[in-house]
């Protein structure tokens, strides 16, 4: 268990600022997710923590010790790669024991450790196989076992679920969370998948263009987005943004409801012309345009199936949003302005 800290760290590749002065602290035993679109710098940040990249400026601190000048092997971190990076020429057992053999551990101790790690991930049967004889899910477990086996102070996971098919991904996500709870090892997890981030993270750091935009619990990130980027990046479909004077008005699709179900004394009404209705099983997505506005305002409403109000394409309805579900963002800076999505000391 350890804390991991990035102190004003930067990494520039030629002119590109992949990581641009990030300060970040992962607490002891925390599951911290780095979330952002591709190219936002999340993987580079993780590689900086691992020691696979040298920072242009700033420091990495693990467990209170500055490790910026240490090679990866001296940092006592373990990493699971998107490709799993299993050594193709070694058996599963040799893959798992690789980090132990590299530090010259005793044979008996190695055997015990490998057995322990293999049992933990239910891969005892595969120990004599080569990676290419395993399925995607089995490979992922081997990669996790290899990471766990030497009991590192930090786990670094780089999109470890993205090569699994959708069905497997859900169960693997669940297991991953369980293991992290049991081991209570500080974990930093990179993903571009918001559902993964929300489901796994104790806290989420949203990155864009080499900077941390917001860091907080999943509830904070979803409920109090700091700016329009976070508001539209998180949530599916994303938050509706409508121009209004010098600001944007934002509201979640599920907060945008027909008057007869959503009305209360503190709600705001929007005249809504429906253009299309998508039936998705558990809910309906209603696409349309807000009327009486200078700029065309396309918005989406997400209606769960227990709302049976009739909504037909081509018709005009009155929709409402409760006042406390409304966010306002500055049009120029994109920042949240009415104080509710306040910093909370998150940055």
């Amino acid at each position, binding site marked *: 268990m350890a804390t991991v800290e990035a102190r004003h760290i930067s990494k520039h590749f030629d002119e590109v600022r992949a990581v641009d002065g990030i300060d970040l602290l992962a607490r002891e035993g925390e599951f911290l997710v780095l979330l952002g679109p591709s190219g936002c710098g999340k993987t580079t940040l993780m590689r900086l923590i691992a*020691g696979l990249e040298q920072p242009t400026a700033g420091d990495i601190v693990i467990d209170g010790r500055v490790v910026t000048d240490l090679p990866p*092997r001296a940092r006592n971190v373990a990493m699971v790669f998107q490709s799993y990076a299993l050594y193709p020429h070694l058996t599963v057992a040799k893959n798992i024991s690789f980090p132990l053999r*590299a530090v010259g551990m005793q044979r008996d101790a190695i055997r015990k450790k490998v057995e322990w790690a293999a049992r933990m991930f239910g891969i005892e049967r595969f120990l004599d196989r080569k990676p290419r004889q395993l399925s995607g899910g089995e490979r992922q477990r081997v990669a996790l076992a290899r990471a766990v086996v030497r009991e590192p102070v930090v786990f670094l996971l780089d999109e470890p679920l993205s090569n699994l098919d959708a069905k497997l991904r859900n169960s693997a996500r669940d297991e991953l969370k369980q293991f992290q709870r049991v081991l209570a090892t500080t974990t930093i997890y990179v993903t571009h998948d918001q559902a993964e981030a929300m489901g796994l993270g104790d806290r989420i750091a949203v990155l864009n263009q080499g900077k941390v935009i917001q860091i907080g619990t999943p509830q904070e990130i979803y409920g109090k987005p700091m700016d329009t980027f976070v508001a539209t990046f998180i949530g599916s479909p994303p938050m509706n943004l409508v121009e209004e004077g010098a600001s944007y008005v934002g509201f979640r699709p599920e907060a945008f409801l027909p008057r007869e179900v959503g009305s209360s004394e503190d709600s705001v009404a929007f005249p809504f012309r429906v253009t299309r209705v998508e039936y998705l099983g558990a809910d309906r997505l209603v696409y349309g345009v807000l009327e009486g506005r200078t700029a065309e305002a396309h918005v989406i409403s997400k209606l769960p199936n227990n709302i049976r109000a009739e909504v037909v394409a081509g018709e005009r309805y009155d929709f409402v949003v409760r006042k406390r579900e409304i966010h306002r963002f500055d049009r120029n800076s994109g920042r949240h302005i009415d104080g509710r999505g306040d910093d909370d000391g998150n940055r």
Partner: protein
Amino acid sequence: MTRRPFKLVRIARAGGHAGILVFFITFLAFPFYWMLMTTFKTTIDLHDVSKNPFLFNEPPTLEHLAVLFQDTQYLQWLINTGAVGIAVVLITLALAVPAGYALARMTGPWAQTLGIAIFLTYLVPPTILFIPFARIIATLGLQDSLWSLVLVYPSFTVPFCTWLLMGFFKAIPRDLEDAAMIDGLSRFGAFVKVVMPISLAGVLTSIIFAFTLVTQEFVYGVTFITSASSYTVSVGVPTFLVRGDVYFWGSMMGACLIASVPIAIIYNFFVDRFVAGFTVGAVK
């Protein structure tokens, strides 16, 4: 009825296809078939113009092969070729493996340029270099010594194998090396303990090419070596077995065949890699 023209077209096309292949196989493989025939024909049969040369008009004989192995230094030439080949392969690997890896992993605009520059030196032909080399070899006192070939042959095997290995190493995912470094190895250790074992196929391919390039070389051999006991096969057969106007055709053809066919077969297994190296990224 309507299908008939299609069938005819198909038969005609298959026939044309077979015809093309037969023509080219005849043209390209005939000299080797002819070597085979000549090797086992008696001298009298070889020199009888009135009889069909495609047939054995007299029973096949081993006399030419006996002459080759007993009365010439052919065996010695085979040994020389093998010895030079092994030495050159070792030098080539020692130089090309690290260089190919460095080129594969170096970043920056001049890494690619450097790789191509090294490859282009493979194209500098012996016919431009053999004259200065003749003098260099004489100055070093290596004329007539197999060491002269061991010294010079890497000048074309190293560029080619460096290029070839660079391609192999580039195909290895970098994640593996990153994982190895996190798992406790140094940057160099990751190369030795993870990359090298995975690249055995590439190293083997380089060994085959370095060796075959050595067996095929003629120009430097004929320039540096003048005494029969130091010849390699590709130089010894055409220079020593041809004496003035006396040609030992049977023995010569046998010598050609014995040296060519094994090399050709081994090479054939790896020729796709060779081509991949040749195409310089013009094929994806």
